[in-house]
């Protein structure tokens, strides 16, 4: 991801006619090429206004807007919008046009030839996970809410714009379908690498969708702009803290993989070793549990001191079975979930062949959380020092 600003807002202001307080006040913001920047904030804080300033659905009353370093506050707004995908919560499919015609809206305006338009419509239906044979000639009223929203996204991608503006695109969809559409969209974005400004009032959606998140307060003032990890680890003020709400620490665990942890040694014996060796290994460490592994170093059973003392040395049906094994790519959140369920309060991490690479314990998570917080705080202190 290059960090060059694809979209730049420079002290943009919008004062609606007949109001004294601006809806957007002196907003400066860079959106990097290929990222999803989420604008999130309470209802009425000016998110939609900000978004609509970018494609000039609303004319700014002050400031400049640049796309690729080109000042677009003076170009023809209709031509500008054909270069920018726009998705709204209500979708706004044209009810009297077929799905294919809907998707072809922008290509038609750009006067593509018929064959190219038809091919593009089919391609986009495929991308949206809808079979062209079935859906091409349907009308919007024959679609479910989720399907309609997919078509809405496909239509916005019509002429392959580099920039997409999305205003609460999944806001009116039931939670299960919303989750699926979010995942599909993230998969699509990994391929397409559009520059996206995404508006939502739902902090969880922001955390999930955003490469970076701008938390906005009244008059669209940026309260914090950063990666979701850093915002969760270090909310800069009470407003942001309140807005993120409870559970920010746990949500933060989603962003770190187990591969990032330094896991220390853990008492282990091979299944051909004696219980006596196990007791010695256990006493040398300060742990309560010991792991029995097989010849390929794959974790088999959890044993306590008492289990070892009564052990016959076969380790069959002794102690408790290792049920869950995580990989290095799993997140700390996954490991927390498993730890809470396991008797030993810890969780095995294994490699591709199932061989043990380490054991995650609660202390590791605690340390990881503290480290993220300290790093984030240091980051903000550095910013202040440089300012």
């Amino acid at each position, binding site marked *: 991801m290059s960090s060059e600003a694809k979209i730049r807002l420079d002290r943009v202001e919008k004062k609606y006619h007949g109001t004294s307080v601006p809806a957007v006040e002196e907003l400066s913001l860079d959106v990097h090429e290929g990222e999803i920047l989420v604008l999130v904030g309470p209802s009425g804080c000016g998110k939609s206004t900000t978004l609509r300033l970018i494609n000039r*659905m609303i004319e700014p009353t002050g400031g400049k807007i640049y796309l690729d370093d080109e000042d677009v506050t003076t170009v023809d707004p*209709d031509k500008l919008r*054909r270069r920018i995908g*726009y998705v709204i919560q209500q979708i*706004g499919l*044209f*009810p009297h*046009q077929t799905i294919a015609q809907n998707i072809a809206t922008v290509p038609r*305006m750009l006067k593509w030839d018929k064959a190219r338009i038809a091919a593009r419509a089919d391609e986009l239906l495929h991308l949206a996970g809808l079979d062209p044979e079935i859906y091409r000639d349907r009308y919007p009223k024959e679609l479910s809410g989720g399907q309609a929203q997919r078509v*809405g996204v496909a239509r916005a991608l019509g002429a392959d714009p580099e920039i997409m503006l999305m205003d609460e695109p999944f806001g009116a969809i039931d939670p299960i379908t919303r989750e699926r559409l979010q995942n599909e969209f993230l998969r699509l974005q990994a391929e397409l690498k559009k520059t996206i400004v995404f508006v939502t009032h739902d902090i969880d959606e922001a955390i999930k969708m955003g490469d970076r998140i701008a938390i906005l307060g009244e008059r669209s003032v940026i309260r914090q702009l950063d990666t979701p990890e850093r915002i969760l680890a270090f909310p800069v003020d009470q407003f942001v803290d309140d807005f993120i709400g409870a559970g920010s620490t746990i949500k933060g665990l989603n962003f770190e993989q187990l591969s990032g942890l330094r896991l220390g040694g853990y008492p282990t014996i091979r299944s051909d070793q004696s219980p006596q060796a196990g007791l010695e290994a256990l006493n040398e460490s300060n742990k309560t549990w010991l792991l029995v592994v097989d010849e390929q170093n794959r974790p088999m059973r959890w044993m306590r001191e008492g289990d070892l003392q009564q052990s016959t040395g076969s380790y069959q049906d002794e102690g408790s079975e290792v049920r869950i094994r995580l990989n290095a790519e799993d997140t700390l959140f996954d490991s927390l979930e498993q730890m809470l369920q396991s008797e030993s309060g810890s969780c095995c991490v294994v490699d591709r062949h199932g061989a043990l690479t380490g054991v995650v314990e609660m202390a590791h998570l605690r340390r990881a959380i503290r480290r993220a917080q300290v790093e984030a705080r240091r980051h903000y202190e550095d910013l202040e020092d440089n300012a």
Partner: protein
Amino acid sequence: MTDQITHREMPTGTEGSEAGPPVVPREGFFAMWRRLQLGLWLAPLGILALVGVLYMYYQNLDLANAVRQTRSALQWETKLWPQMLQHVQIAFVATVVVVIVAVPLGIILTRPAFRRVGPYVVAVANSGQALPAYGLLVLFGAAMGMNRTAAMWAFVVYALLPVLRNTMVGLDQVDRSVIEAGRGMGMTRMLVLTRIELPLAVPVILAGVRVAMVLNIGMATLAFLIGGGALGVTIYSGIELNQNSVLIVGAVLVAIVALTFDWLGAVAERYLRPRGI
């Protein structure tokens, strides 16, 4: 369309055995009527039947022994047929002019720049309809001379309101988010109007045109008052001669013309309505 009936689910067997034989849900009479659009296809039959009845009535009139004025008033080639053509002509031309005036006016009055004057123009159009039709005719006759053109213009003013109001309502009821999506993709205001707003308003506008058409056919009966001819002439002589046969033939012919055009309007509404809505 018929698979709505055949694919309808039956109550399950267990339910049926407890509560007696399963009840097959029946489509209501009116639902079936609407579904098959029987009205649309039965109406011409009704109109033809009316024509048949009138024809028989006319054939059985003892015109040879009737008074001279009656015989003359009921002549087909020189009286009834030309009057009927005049009738259709007045109503049709007036309606076309109404559409040419009211639809663009309705479009202009729903654009942001003129939205605020809309209510005033509607009020003026309203007063056109509130005036007594007779007075309106006389006014136009006095101003433009006693002829068919004057009558036609009077009817234009009279029938303007339904088309104007329906055009405005039809355009206003188009979902804002559909327009927003169109504008957001870079459609010009003109494109949004022609490709989205107008097609979506067509059903409502057509309903207004149909009302205006029927209104005009009724009004054309009064055109004779300022020398505009049409079937009102026959009806009026029926009253003047105190001859019911003349009155009946004239009135039924008006009814046939009105029903025929109303039916044409219904067919137009059915087939000009965009698919998907």
